[in-house]
């Protein structure tokens, strides 16, 4: 059973044809890094998967379930969520409220507020604070906490290290490793290729809205020079 399988995804923004054939596959639980230059269509790919931007054609299968015609919140209910690039902070909600609004009162849920706060102790002291008053790193931790509370099987992360200090990036890598060890899969979009390669098992390269290359991290590393054209390193 594959976690996420994307076939020939095409998406338009108005009249511009942004995604012109995206294909990749995450076979078993793990982390796929989606790499590419600015404007290659990485964010649009993530948005299309969770139907924040409606794809025009193509197939998206999540745990062998076709996501066609499911709305974003239904997709989230199936266990696929995203941490958006802007981190999706709710400016009028406190940290605690931001966690409380996520339906999570099932007894069998693996993640609940207590457990999330154990994993992110820095949020514990700021529960009453407005979520937009947090530092960049703390906001990213809160965003990941919220995603975990939906009890996902796959989290899409859009530029999670953007604007974070190097030591916070290291902390984030540790957190993402921990999440992966819980059998939650990740699809990560990153400008910071080295960071993405720290945790990824699979790599997919996107250029001008098309998939240019798919493979394992090992194969990718063997031939980095060849990929330079498309990822701009």
């Amino acid at each position, binding site marked *: 059973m594959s976690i996420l399988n994307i076939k020939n995804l095409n998406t338009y923004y108005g009249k511009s044809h942004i995604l012109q054939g995206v294909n990749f596959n995450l076979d078993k639980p793990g982390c796929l890094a989606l790499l590419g230059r600015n404007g290659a269509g990485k964010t649009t790919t993530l948005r299309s998967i969770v139907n*924040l931007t409606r794809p025009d054609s193509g197939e998206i299968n999540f745990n062998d379930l076709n996501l066609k015609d499911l709305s974003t919140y239904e997709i*989230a209910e199936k266990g696929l*969520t995203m941490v958006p690039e802007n981190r999706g*902070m*709710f*400016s009028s*909600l406190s940290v605690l409220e931001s966690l409380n*609004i996520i*339906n999570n009162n099932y007894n069998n849920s693996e993640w609940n507020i207590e457990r999330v706060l154990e994993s992110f102790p820095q949020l514990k002291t700021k529960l009453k604070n407005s979520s937009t008053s947090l530092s960049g790193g703390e906001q990213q931790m809160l965003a990941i906490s919220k995603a975990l509370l*939906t009890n996902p099987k796959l989290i899409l992360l859009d530029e999670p290290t953007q604007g974070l200090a190097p030591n916070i990036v290291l902390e984030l890598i540790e957190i993402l490793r921990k999440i992966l060890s819980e059998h939650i899969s990740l699809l990560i979009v990153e400008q910071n290729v080295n960071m993405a390669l720290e945790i990824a098992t699979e790599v997919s390269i996107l250029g001008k809205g098309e998939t240019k290359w798919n493979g394992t991290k090992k194969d990718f590393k063997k031939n980095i020079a060849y990929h330079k054209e498309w990822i701009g390193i």
Partner: protein
Amino acid sequence: MLLIQFLNALQFSMTLFLLAVGLTIIFGLMKIVNLAHGSLYMIGAYVGLSIWTYFDSFWLALIFSPLITALVGAFLYYILFRHIQNADPMKQVLLTFGLIYIGLDSVRLIWGTMSHSISAPELLSKSIILINNPYPSYRLFVIFIGILVLICLYFILEKTVIGAKVRASVDDPEAAKLLKINTDKILFYTFSFGCGLAGLAGITVAPILGVEPGMDMEVLVLTLIVVVVGGPGSLKGALVGALLIGFVDSFGKVYIPQLAQIIIYAVMALTLLFRPDGLYKR
């Protein structure tokens, strides 16, 4: 005298608040400026008029006309508004502007072109003496309703999980959807609720201002000014904007009647000059 002016201004502000709060929530959630919001206010007043006429009870009208207006809102949401979300603003304006005419003609068709009056209920028909001045107790009741709605809204929005979900959906609808929140359902209920509040405003002012075709346009302009001054999408802004416009308008008419026509526009212009996003930017 000052006390009487103050209470009149407060009553007017509370009516504006009931209207503006619905409009601003709808704008915050859907990014739609519903120009037909005044029509729902008028419908609330007319439905109240019918209930009052047939059942001879103001209280029944007070309870059922907001409910019926909310149902009208729900119907409009279902057949129209959900389709124009994220549409070109020009389309939204044309559609909701068209609804104003449909509303006006429907009202003329059903209730005629005459103006009507509703009398305040027996219990509230007398004036009470406040520091040697008689003051109609019904107006105090309208103030009371406004404050009651304000407290209930505050409680629901700030202290309950449902309220937090509504605020989250206003702040960032996409992020809310990603957290399993069905924002469409929240939209539907909030839209209907906002329309119900417009209906409540309509029935509560009916004994003061009467019921007539065209009452919608008068309040629409004022409500839009309140929302713009307060900051579109902001609840606090709706309250502060309603108080500001309500007081400036009421006191302006008494103390500088020569400027009565333009003073609230001047307030709006000044606000936008210094705070282009309104007093409370979201």
